[in-house]
Protein backbone atom coordinates (compact mmCIF):
# COMPACT_ATOMS: atom_id res chain seq x y z
CA UNK A 1 0.00 0.00 0.00
CA UNK A 2 1.60 3.25 -1.12
CA UNK A 3 -1.02 5.90 -0.45
CA UNK A 4 -1.03 7.61 2.91
CA UNK A 5 -3.74 6.75 5.32
CA UNK A 6 -5.11 9.09 7.96
CA UNK A 7 -6.98 8.03 11.05
CA UNK A 8 -9.14 10.02 13.46
CA UNK A 9 -11.10 9.07 16.53
CA UNK A 10 -14.85 9.13 16.06
CA UNK A 11 -16.83 11.59 18.15
CA UNK A 12 -19.55 8.98 18.71
CA UNK A 13 -17.55 7.20 21.36
CA UNK A 14 -16.56 7.49 24.99
CA UNK A 15 -12.95 6.65 25.85
CA UNK A 16 -10.63 6.64 28.82
CA UNK A 17 -7.07 5.57 29.37
CA UNK A 18 -6.62 3.25 32.33
CA UNK A 19 -3.03 2.30 32.98
CA UNK A 20 -1.57 1.02 29.71
CA UNK A 21 -4.97 0.26 28.27
CA UNK A 22 -7.68 2.35 26.72
CA UNK A 23 -11.33 1.50 27.11
CA UNK A 24 -13.56 2.67 24.31
CA UNK A 25 -17.30 2.43 24.20
CA UNK A 26 -19.28 2.87 21.03
CA UNK A 27 -22.16 5.29 21.43
CA UNK A 28 -23.88 3.55 18.56
CA UNK A 29 -24.31 0.12 20.10
CA UNK A 30 -22.64 0.46 23.53
CA UNK A 31 -20.09 -2.20 22.71
CA UNK A 32 -17.01 -1.94 24.91
CA UNK A 33 -13.53 -2.34 23.48
CA UNK A 34 -10.24 -2.56 25.33
CA UNK A 35 -7.12 -1.45 23.51
CA UNK A 36 -3.78 -2.83 24.65
CA UNK A 37 -0.64 -0.76 25.08
CA UNK A 38 0.37 -0.64 21.41
CA UNK A 39 -3.18 -0.06 20.21
CA UNK A 40 -3.44 2.75 22.76
CA UNK A 41 -0.42 4.48 21.20
CA UNK A 42 -2.12 4.37 17.80
CA UNK A 43 -5.43 5.48 19.30
CA UNK A 44 -3.87 8.47 21.01
CA UNK A 45 -2.04 9.44 17.84
CA UNK A 46 -5.12 9.22 15.64
CA UNK A 47 -5.53 12.97 15.24
CA UNK A 48 -6.64 12.93 11.62
CA UNK A 49 -3.54 14.85 10.57
CA UNK A 50 -0.72 12.33 11.05
CA UNK A 51 -0.48 9.52 8.48
CA UNK A 52 -0.68 6.03 9.96
CA UNK A 53 2.69 5.19 8.46
CA UNK A 54 4.24 8.08 10.37
CA UNK A 55 2.52 7.05 13.61
CA UNK A 56 3.90 3.56 13.25
CA UNK A 57 7.39 4.76 12.39
CA UNK A 58 7.65 7.41 15.10
CA UNK A 59 5.53 6.03 17.91
CA UNK A 60 5.60 2.25 17.55
CA UNK A 61 8.90 1.25 15.98
CA UNK A 62 10.85 3.64 18.21
CA UNK A 63 9.31 2.22 21.37
CA UNK A 64 8.86 -1.44 20.51
CA UNK A 65 11.19 -3.85 18.81
CA UNK A 66 8.98 -4.48 15.80
CA UNK A 67 10.04 -4.24 12.13
CA UNK A 68 8.30 -1.33 10.37
CA UNK A 69 6.66 -3.58 7.79
CA UNK A 70 5.17 -5.91 10.39
CA UNK A 71 4.08 -3.05 12.64
CA UNK A 72 2.39 -1.22 9.77
CA UNK A 73 0.53 -4.31 8.67
CA UNK A 74 -0.68 -4.91 12.23
CA UNK A 75 -1.62 -1.26 12.60
CA UNK A 76 -3.62 -1.32 9.39
CA UNK A 77 -5.48 -4.39 10.58
CA UNK A 78 -6.22 -2.66 13.87
CA UNK A 79 -7.50 0.60 12.41
CA UNK A 80 -9.64 -1.23 9.89
CA UNK A 81 -11.19 -3.26 12.66
CA UNK A 82 -11.84 -0.19 14.79
CA UNK A 83 -13.21 1.68 11.79
CA UNK A 84 -15.50 -1.27 11.13
CA UNK A 85 -16.98 -0.73 14.59
CA UNK A 86 -17.30 3.00 13.99
CA UNK A 87 -14.63 3.97 16.50
CA UNK A 88 -12.16 5.39 14.01
CA UNK A 89 -12.49 7.30 10.76
CA UNK A 90 -10.17 6.38 7.88
CA UNK A 91 -9.28 8.45 4.88
CA UNK A 92 -6.56 8.89 2.30
CA UNK A 93 -6.69 12.62 3.09
CA UNK A 94 -6.25 14.45 6.39
CA UNK A 95 -9.42 14.36 8.44
CA UNK A 96 -10.54 17.67 9.88
CA UNK A 97 -12.55 17.19 13.03
CA UNK A 98 -12.38 18.15 16.64
CA UNK A 99 -11.38 15.36 18.95
CA UNK A 100 -10.85 15.41 22.65
CA UNK A 101 -7.35 15.14 23.99
CA UNK A 102 -6.27 11.55 24.63
CA UNK A 103 -6.88 10.32 28.13
CA UNK A 104 -9.88 12.54 28.64
CA UNK A 105 -13.39 11.32 28.50
CA UNK A 106 -14.83 12.19 25.14
Amino acid at each position, binding site marked *: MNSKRYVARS*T*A*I*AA*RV*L*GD*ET*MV*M*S*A*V*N*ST*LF*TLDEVATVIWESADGATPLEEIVANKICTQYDIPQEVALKDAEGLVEELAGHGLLLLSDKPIAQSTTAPGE*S*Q
Partner: protein
Amino acid sequence: MPGVTVAQQRCDVVVEIGDLPIRLCSGDPAFIRLIQDRYAGYVSSSDHASFEFEIELTPPGAESVDEELRVTWEAGRWLMERGDFRAEWNPSTARGRIEQTINPYSLDSVLRIVHTLLLARKGGFLMHASSAIRNGRAFLFAGVSGAGKTTMARLAPPDAALLTDEISYVTLQDGRYTAVGTPFFGELARVGENLRAPIDGVYLLAKGPENKVEPIAGADAVRGLLGNILFFARDPESVKLVFDAAFDFVSRVPVRRLTFVPDSRVWELIV
Protein backbone atom coordinates in the same frame (compact mmCIF):
# COMPACT_ATOMS: atom_id res chain seq x y z
CA MET B 1 -83.98 17.43 25.16
CA PRO B 2 -82.71 15.68 28.22
CA GLY B 3 -79.15 14.52 28.09
CA VAL B 4 -76.67 12.76 30.22
CA THR B 5 -73.16 13.97 30.76
CA VAL B 6 -70.69 11.40 31.92
CA ALA B 7 -67.70 12.92 33.65
CA GLN B 8 -64.85 10.47 33.53
CA GLN B 9 -63.02 10.39 36.81
CA ARG B 10 -59.35 11.20 36.47
CA CYS B 11 -57.26 9.52 39.12
CA ASP B 12 -53.62 9.80 39.94
CA VAL B 13 -50.94 8.47 42.23
CA VAL B 14 -47.43 9.75 42.96
CA VAL B 15 -44.74 7.06 42.90
CA GLU B 16 -41.43 8.16 44.40
CA ILE B 17 -38.34 6.07 43.71
CA GLY B 18 -35.01 7.53 44.76
CA ASP B 19 -35.77 11.20 45.19
CA LEU B 20 -37.95 11.43 42.13
CA PRO B 21 -41.70 11.68 42.64
CA ILE B 22 -43.59 10.91 39.42
CA ARG B 23 -47.31 11.46 39.12
CA LEU B 24 -49.15 8.77 37.16
CA CYS B 25 -52.60 9.69 35.92
CA SER B 26 -55.23 7.49 34.37
CA GLY B 27 -58.92 7.63 33.62
CA ASP B 28 -59.23 4.12 35.00
CA PRO B 29 -59.45 4.07 38.82
CA ALA B 30 -58.87 0.31 38.82
CA PHE B 31 -55.52 0.78 37.12
CA ILE B 32 -54.50 3.42 39.65
CA ARG B 33 -55.38 0.99 42.45
CA LEU B 34 -53.28 -1.62 40.68
CA ILE B 35 -50.36 0.84 40.60
CA GLN B 36 -50.84 1.63 44.29
CA ASP B 37 -50.63 -2.08 45.11
CA ARG B 38 -47.73 -2.73 42.76
CA TYR B 39 -45.62 0.13 44.14
CA ALA B 40 -46.63 -0.20 47.78
CA GLY B 41 -43.96 1.42 49.92
CA TYR B 42 -43.11 3.87 47.13
CA VAL B 43 -46.43 5.70 46.89
CA SER B 44 -45.83 9.23 48.10
CA SER B 45 -48.07 10.76 50.74
CA SER B 46 -47.28 14.18 49.28
CA ASP B 47 -49.05 15.58 46.24
CA HIS B 48 -45.77 17.03 44.93
CA ALA B 49 -44.34 15.46 41.77
CA SER B 50 -41.37 16.33 39.55
CA PHE B 51 -42.93 14.79 36.46
CA GLU B 52 -46.33 13.69 35.30
CA PHE B 53 -47.35 10.90 32.98
CA GLU B 54 -50.82 10.49 31.54
CA ILE B 55 -51.47 6.80 30.97
CA GLU B 56 -53.86 5.81 28.23
CA LEU B 57 -54.90 2.19 28.44
CA THR B 58 -55.34 0.38 25.18
CA PRO B 59 -57.52 -2.72 24.82
CA PRO B 60 -55.89 -6.07 25.60
CA GLY B 61 -54.51 -7.62 22.45
CA ALA B 62 -53.57 -4.24 20.99
CA GLU B 63 -49.92 -4.80 21.81
CA SER B 64 -47.52 -6.30 19.29
CA VAL B 65 -45.02 -9.05 19.94
CA ASP B 66 -42.12 -6.76 19.06
CA GLU B 67 -39.75 -7.05 22.03
CA GLU B 68 -37.15 -4.65 20.73
CA LEU B 69 -36.94 -1.54 22.85
CA ARG B 70 -36.22 1.79 21.19
CA VAL B 71 -35.35 4.89 23.20
CA THR B 72 -34.67 7.95 21.11
CA TRP B 73 -34.43 11.70 21.57
CA GLU B 74 -36.48 13.60 19.04
CA ALA B 75 -37.60 17.23 18.92
CA GLY B 76 -37.02 17.87 22.59
CA ARG B 77 -38.63 14.73 23.95
CA TRP B 78 -37.74 11.18 24.71
CA LEU B 79 -39.60 8.50 22.79
CA MET B 80 -39.77 5.02 24.27
CA GLU B 81 -41.31 2.22 22.34
CA ARG B 82 -41.69 -1.51 22.61
CA GLY B 83 -44.39 -3.89 21.43
CA ASP B 84 -46.39 -3.50 24.64
CA PHE B 85 -46.11 0.26 25.11
CA ARG B 86 -45.38 3.57 23.50
CA ALA B 87 -44.35 6.51 25.64
CA GLU B 88 -43.07 10.00 25.21
CA TRP B 89 -41.66 12.35 27.78
CA ASN B 90 -40.71 15.99 27.51
CA PRO B 91 -38.26 16.88 30.30
CA SER B 92 -38.71 20.62 29.76
CA THR B 93 -42.46 20.51 30.33
CA ALA B 94 -42.11 17.71 32.90
CA ARG B 95 -44.93 15.88 31.18
CA GLY B 96 -45.24 12.61 29.39
CA ARG B 97 -47.73 10.15 28.00
CA ILE B 98 -47.85 6.37 28.00
CA GLU B 99 -50.00 4.16 25.82
CA GLN B 100 -50.12 0.62 27.12
CA THR B 101 -52.41 -2.22 28.03
CA ILE B 102 -53.35 -2.77 31.65
CA ASN B 103 -50.23 -4.92 32.11
CA PRO B 104 -48.23 -3.15 34.87
CA TYR B 105 -44.98 -4.57 33.50
CA SER B 106 -45.14 -1.98 30.72
CA LEU B 107 -45.30 0.87 33.23
CA ASP B 108 -42.45 -0.73 35.16
CA SER B 109 -40.33 -0.61 32.00
CA VAL B 110 -41.12 3.05 31.34
CA LEU B 111 -40.23 3.98 34.91
CA ARG B 112 -36.92 2.12 34.65
CA ILE B 113 -36.06 3.96 31.44
CA VAL B 114 -37.00 7.36 32.85
CA HIS B 115 -34.91 6.73 35.95
CA THR B 116 -31.87 5.65 33.91
CA LEU B 117 -32.11 8.84 31.84
CA LEU B 118 -32.40 11.08 34.89
CA LEU B 119 -29.83 9.23 36.99
CA ALA B 120 -27.25 9.43 34.18
CA ARG B 121 -27.38 13.22 34.40
CA LYS B 122 -26.71 13.04 38.12
CA GLY B 123 -23.84 10.56 37.93
CA GLY B 124 -25.95 7.56 38.94
CA PHE B 125 -27.35 4.49 37.25
CA LEU B 126 -29.55 1.43 37.56
CA MET B 127 -27.76 -1.88 37.71
CA HIS B 128 -28.65 -5.54 37.25
CA ALA B 129 -27.95 -6.34 40.89
CA SER B 130 -29.64 -7.32 44.07
CA SER B 131 -28.76 -5.15 47.03
CA ALA B 132 -29.13 -5.12 50.76
CA ILE B 133 -28.22 -2.94 53.71
CA ARG B 134 -26.43 -4.43 56.65
CA ASN B 135 -24.96 -2.50 59.57
CA GLY B 136 -25.67 0.76 57.80
CA ARG B 137 -23.79 -0.19 54.64
CA ALA B 138 -25.15 -1.28 51.28
CA PHE B 139 -23.84 -4.25 49.31
CA LEU B 140 -24.64 -4.92 45.66
CA PHE B 141 -24.58 -8.34 44.00
CA ALA B 142 -24.41 -7.94 40.26
CA GLY B 143 -24.83 -10.36 37.44
CA VAL B 144 -26.84 -11.40 34.46
CA SER B 145 -29.96 -13.48 34.72
CA GLY B 146 -29.15 -16.73 36.51
CA ALA B 147 -25.96 -15.40 38.12
CA GLY B 148 -27.46 -15.56 41.60
CA LYS B 149 -28.90 -12.12 42.37
CA THR B 150 -32.14 -13.51 43.78
CA THR B 151 -30.28 -16.33 45.50
CA MET B 152 -28.10 -13.83 47.37
CA ALA B 153 -31.24 -11.93 48.36
CA ARG B 154 -32.92 -15.12 49.60
CA LEU B 155 -29.83 -16.10 51.61
CA ALA B 156 -29.52 -12.70 53.28
CA PRO B 157 -29.40 -12.87 57.08
CA PRO B 158 -32.39 -11.61 59.07
CA ASP B 159 -30.67 -8.37 60.00
CA ALA B 160 -30.19 -7.38 56.34
CA ALA B 161 -32.70 -5.03 54.72
CA LEU B 162 -33.36 -6.07 51.14
CA LEU B 163 -33.40 -3.16 48.67
CA THR B 164 -34.11 -5.24 45.57
CA ASP B 165 -33.41 -8.68 44.17
CA GLU B 166 -33.17 -7.46 40.58
CA ILE B 167 -32.48 -3.78 39.80
CA SER B 168 -30.31 -1.71 42.12
CA TYR B 169 -30.60 2.05 42.21
CA VAL B 170 -27.24 3.82 42.51
CA THR B 171 -27.15 7.54 43.10
CA LEU B 172 -24.57 10.10 44.15
CA GLN B 173 -25.60 11.64 47.42
CA ASP B 174 -23.36 14.13 49.20
CA GLY B 175 -20.46 12.88 47.13
CA ARG B 176 -20.98 9.24 48.10
CA TYR B 177 -22.43 6.47 46.01
CA THR B 178 -25.61 5.39 47.70
CA ALA B 179 -27.92 2.45 47.09
CA VAL B 180 -31.63 3.16 47.27
CA GLY B 181 -34.45 0.65 47.52
CA THR B 182 -36.57 0.02 44.44
CA PRO B 183 -39.90 -1.62 43.70
CA PHE B 184 -38.27 -3.35 40.72
CA PHE B 185 -38.19 -7.00 41.64
CA GLY B 186 -37.17 -10.26 40.02
CA GLU B 187 -37.94 -13.86 40.91
CA LEU B 188 -38.42 -12.97 44.55
CA ALA B 189 -41.53 -11.01 43.55
CA ARG B 190 -41.09 -8.77 46.57
CA VAL B 191 -40.83 -4.99 46.56
CA GLY B 192 -37.56 -3.81 48.11
CA GLU B 193 -37.52 -1.79 51.29
CA ASN B 194 -37.59 1.95 50.70
CA LEU B 195 -34.29 2.62 52.47
CA ARG B 196 -30.86 3.89 51.46
CA ALA B 197 -27.24 3.56 52.58
CA PRO B 198 -23.74 4.31 51.29
CA ILE B 199 -22.43 1.53 49.07
CA ASP B 200 -19.66 -0.48 50.69
CA GLY B 201 -18.91 -2.67 47.69
CA VAL B 202 -20.12 -4.34 44.53
CA TYR B 203 -19.77 -8.08 44.15
CA LEU B 204 -19.80 -9.53 40.64
CA LEU B 205 -21.43 -12.92 41.04
CA ALA B 206 -20.09 -16.24 39.84
CA LYS B 207 -21.21 -19.67 40.95
CA GLY B 208 -18.46 -22.08 41.95
CA PRO B 209 -17.44 -24.97 44.19
CA GLU B 210 -16.50 -22.77 47.15
CA ASN B 211 -17.16 -19.36 48.60
CA LYS B 212 -14.46 -16.83 47.90
CA VAL B 213 -14.00 -13.13 47.33
CA GLU B 214 -11.38 -11.67 44.99
CA PRO B 215 -10.69 -8.00 44.38
CA ILE B 216 -11.15 -6.69 40.86
CA ALA B 217 -9.50 -3.48 39.78
CA GLY B 218 -8.94 -1.24 36.81
CA ALA B 219 -10.31 -2.15 33.44
CA ASP B 220 -11.73 -5.45 34.68
CA ALA B 221 -13.78 -3.63 37.31
CA VAL B 222 -15.06 -1.10 34.78
CA ARG B 223 -15.88 -3.87 32.33
CA GLY B 224 -17.71 -5.85 35.00
CA LEU B 225 -19.67 -2.82 36.09
CA LEU B 226 -20.58 -1.63 32.61
CA GLY B 227 -21.74 -5.12 31.73
CA ASN B 228 -24.41 -4.83 34.40
CA ILE B 229 -25.50 -1.21 34.11
CA LEU B 230 -28.87 -0.62 32.48
CA PHE B 231 -28.95 2.03 29.82
CA PHE B 232 -31.37 2.18 27.01
CA ALA B 233 -30.65 5.43 25.19
CA ARG B 234 -28.12 5.15 22.38
CA ASP B 235 -27.32 8.81 21.95
CA PRO B 236 -23.64 9.69 22.43
CA GLU B 237 -24.29 12.01 25.37
CA SER B 238 -26.11 9.37 27.41
CA VAL B 239 -23.52 6.71 26.63
CA LYS B 240 -20.70 9.02 27.70
CA LEU B 241 -22.45 9.90 30.93
CA VAL B 242 -22.83 6.26 31.88
CA PHE B 243 -19.28 5.47 30.80
CA ASP B 244 -17.92 8.30 32.97
CA ALA B 245 -20.08 7.27 35.90
CA ALA B 246 -18.72 3.72 35.73
CA PHE B 247 -15.12 4.97 35.86
CA ASP B 248 -15.87 7.33 38.71
CA PHE B 249 -17.67 4.60 40.61
CA VAL B 250 -14.81 2.07 40.43
CA SER B 251 -12.39 4.76 41.58
CA ARG B 252 -14.40 5.16 44.78
CA VAL B 253 -16.14 1.87 45.51
CA PRO B 254 -14.45 -1.54 45.76
CA VAL B 255 -15.48 -4.06 43.12
CA ARG B 256 -14.97 -7.72 43.91
CA ARG B 257 -15.76 -11.08 42.38
CA LEU B 258 -17.86 -13.27 44.64
CA THR B 259 -17.75 -16.94 43.78
CA PHE B 260 -20.28 -18.79 45.84
CA VAL B 261 -22.14 -22.00 46.50
CA PRO B 262 -25.77 -21.36 47.24
CA ASP B 263 -25.92 -21.53 51.01
CA SER B 264 -26.17 -18.88 53.68
CA ARG B 265 -22.48 -19.12 54.69
CA VAL B 266 -21.65 -16.94 51.72
CA TRP B 267 -22.89 -13.97 53.72
CA GLU B 268 -20.06 -14.54 56.21
CA LEU B 269 -17.78 -13.10 53.52
CA ILE B 270 -19.83 -9.94 53.15
CA VAL B 271 -18.27 -7.70 55.76
